[in-house]
């Protein structure tokens, strides 16, 4: 157990005209160094908010209400990222913690060539002013080959590249400063299956070579299911389950996890077993009392559990490092497999 990020009671609020939305509600989780972690959840479940929280890029009307994010550096120091000033955090952002966003197409500056993106990024973080352009471009070419792009891309403008090539360019750019953690927010959504496979394959190989910690945020469990070590499930701003991917798949301890796994059509299984989760996700301004998944949960619909009366506290350890938010996890495990 070698943690790299310890998130403790993280709450992120957004002020709206009709009240405060807590988009990330009391999330506590430890990410281990060198793991590939997947966070799944539907739109509005708080995945991106959590990512922005870790990167400290929450902007008004959002704010971090409380919580700690402890980052263990390679040298063994422990830093609370949320206590850092904007200037101090800038030393870590992109040097140690980087990100690849969903709409990669829009991240690159259309008026700059690809090589200028690399030079600009390296120079901006080069506090000792030791780097030369030649050195940076050598490194850039090496990284581009790692994401299986040719060196000539360096002289292209973003509009000359396809969506998949841009996404790969950004992955290379995010690795430029040799970070510890890379957060990938929907890295393959809006890409074709073949391009999607390619990007995941590249990321897998990079992880094998560098041992970098990767955190995937996605709504589509099938993309990451076979790649990640640990998986977290978010619903309505809460982390409802977290554990080793095999355990979460074979023995889910939250009925939302089970429902989600069962709702994804695949190529191999028996299609008659696929079932949608009933109902719709609630409005974050009018959350149901007690358990937020209650109105859609089969345990509650069967009368096993009175979801309004549940007092959700911390996550419960169900063994083998699997955590759940559901107090009736034993019944979930009995019925879902």
């Amino acid at each position: 157990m070698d943690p790299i990020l310890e998130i403790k009671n993280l709450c992120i609020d957004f002020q709206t005209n009709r009240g405060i939305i807590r988009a990330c509600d009391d999330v506590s989780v430890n990410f281990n160094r060198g793991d590939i972690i997947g966070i799944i959840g539907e739109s509005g479940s708080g995945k991106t908010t959590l990512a922005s929280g870790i990167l400290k890029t929450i902007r008004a009307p959002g704010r971090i209400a409380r919580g700690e994010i402890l980052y263990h550096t390679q040298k063994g120091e422990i830093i609370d990222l949320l206590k850092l000033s904007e200037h101090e955090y800038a030393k870590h952002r992109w040097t140690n913690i980087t990100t690849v966003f969903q709409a990669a197409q829009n991240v690159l500056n259309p008026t700059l060539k690809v090589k200028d993106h690399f030079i600009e990024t390296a120079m901006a973080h080069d506090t000792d002013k030791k780097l030369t352009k030649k050195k940076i471009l050598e490194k850039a070419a090496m990284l581009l080959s790692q994401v299986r792009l040719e060196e000539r891309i360096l002289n292209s403008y973003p509009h000359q590249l396809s969506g998949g090539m841009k996404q790969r360019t950004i992955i290379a750019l995010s690795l430029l400063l040799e970070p510890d953690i890379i957060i990938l927010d929907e890295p393959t959504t809006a890409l074709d299956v073949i391009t999607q496979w390619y990007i995941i394959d590249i990321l897998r190989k990079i992880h094998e070579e560098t041992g970098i910690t990767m955190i995937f945020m996605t709504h589509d469990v099938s993309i990451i299911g076979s790649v990640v070590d640990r998986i977290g499930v978010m619903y309505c701003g809460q982390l409802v389950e977290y554990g080793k991917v095999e355990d979460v798949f074979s023995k889910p301890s939250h009925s939302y996890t089970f429902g989600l796994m069962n709702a994804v059509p695949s190529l191999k299984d028996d299609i008659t077993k696929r079932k949608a989760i009933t109902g719709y996700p609630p409005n974050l301004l009018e959350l149901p009392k007690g358990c937020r998944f209650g109105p859609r949960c089969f345990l509650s619909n069967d009368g096993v559990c009175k979801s309004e009366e549940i007092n959700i506290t911390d996550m419960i350890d169900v063994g083998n490092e699997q955590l759940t938010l559901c107090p009736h996890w034993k019944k979930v495990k009995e019925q879902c497999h």
Partner: protein
Amino acid sequence: MPSLEEGERAMSLIELNNVDISFASKGKKKGSVNALVGMNLTIDEGEIIAVVGESGCGKTTLGKVIADIYRPTKGEVLFHGKDIHKLSKKEYQEYRLGVQMVHQDSYAALNPNKTIAQSLILPLLRHKLAKNNEEALDILFEYFNEVGLNPPELFLEKYPHQLSGGQRQRILLARALSVRPKLIVADEPVSMVDVSLRISLLNLMAKMNQKYKISFIYITHDLGTARYIAAHGKIMVMYLGRMIESNKIQEAIKNPMHPYFQALVAAVPEADSRRSEFAKELPLRSLDMPDLLNLPEGCKFHPRCPYYKDICMQEEPKLRKLNGGIVACHRAEECMKKTETEE
């Protein structure tokens, strides 16, 4: 035209005969992009056909040709055996009502300034399916119940932005159903809907198919959902504007014939790692599509195909019968054998 042939043709609902569509490219590189090339397709009553392929392969163009949004550059589209551009006004209206589209982006498909009721009553009055507002509302109530929007009055008075993506997509489906169509062209209808709700929408379409015998063209790049909705239907695989394979869907996914479709099937990730491992390698030589303005000679897939031979570079393969379906590949038999032995 001989009457017998006429009678035979009337069997299928929609038929595409050798349809070509090309778009002129006005950029620096002059030329034309052929979005559809020699497309032949028949859609029977009550049939579900899933159309799959990468982005840019012409799936959406095909859908729009069927709905007469694009006019073919060459070839004809037949509705009950008659060319849609030679129909009388009354017949054309029947065709227009008979073929409805459901779009990917449900937010863009609804007028943001109108309530759902205002948007949905209009077509019913316009096509005289209802005499007045009350009658139209009665019809809408019926279909809203059908698509699972209960109680209907709660949704009818809302504006599009007040509804979730899944609810809006149901409204689009109700809108399409309300004019009693024969065919619904659904262009990526669930790709913007949350995963937990996708299945319920797919089920809904399957139910409509069975209950009203409505045919569906389901356009998608997601093989998983295609297999789900068209469980007893056909699949059609497109590559660069051409149909390259078509078969019954279960058989097609079990035994893909065209090397491109084999790669597509191999690339689909499986959520549960107990069901299948992450594919170590894809059977492709190159992952990038060729330049649309400068397509390769011969088989359009050969620069990416791992099984190509000289013939593939010279001659474009025609569709031929194989394994109960059709495929356009010179070496489909060898490809199928190879994948079997590898497994």
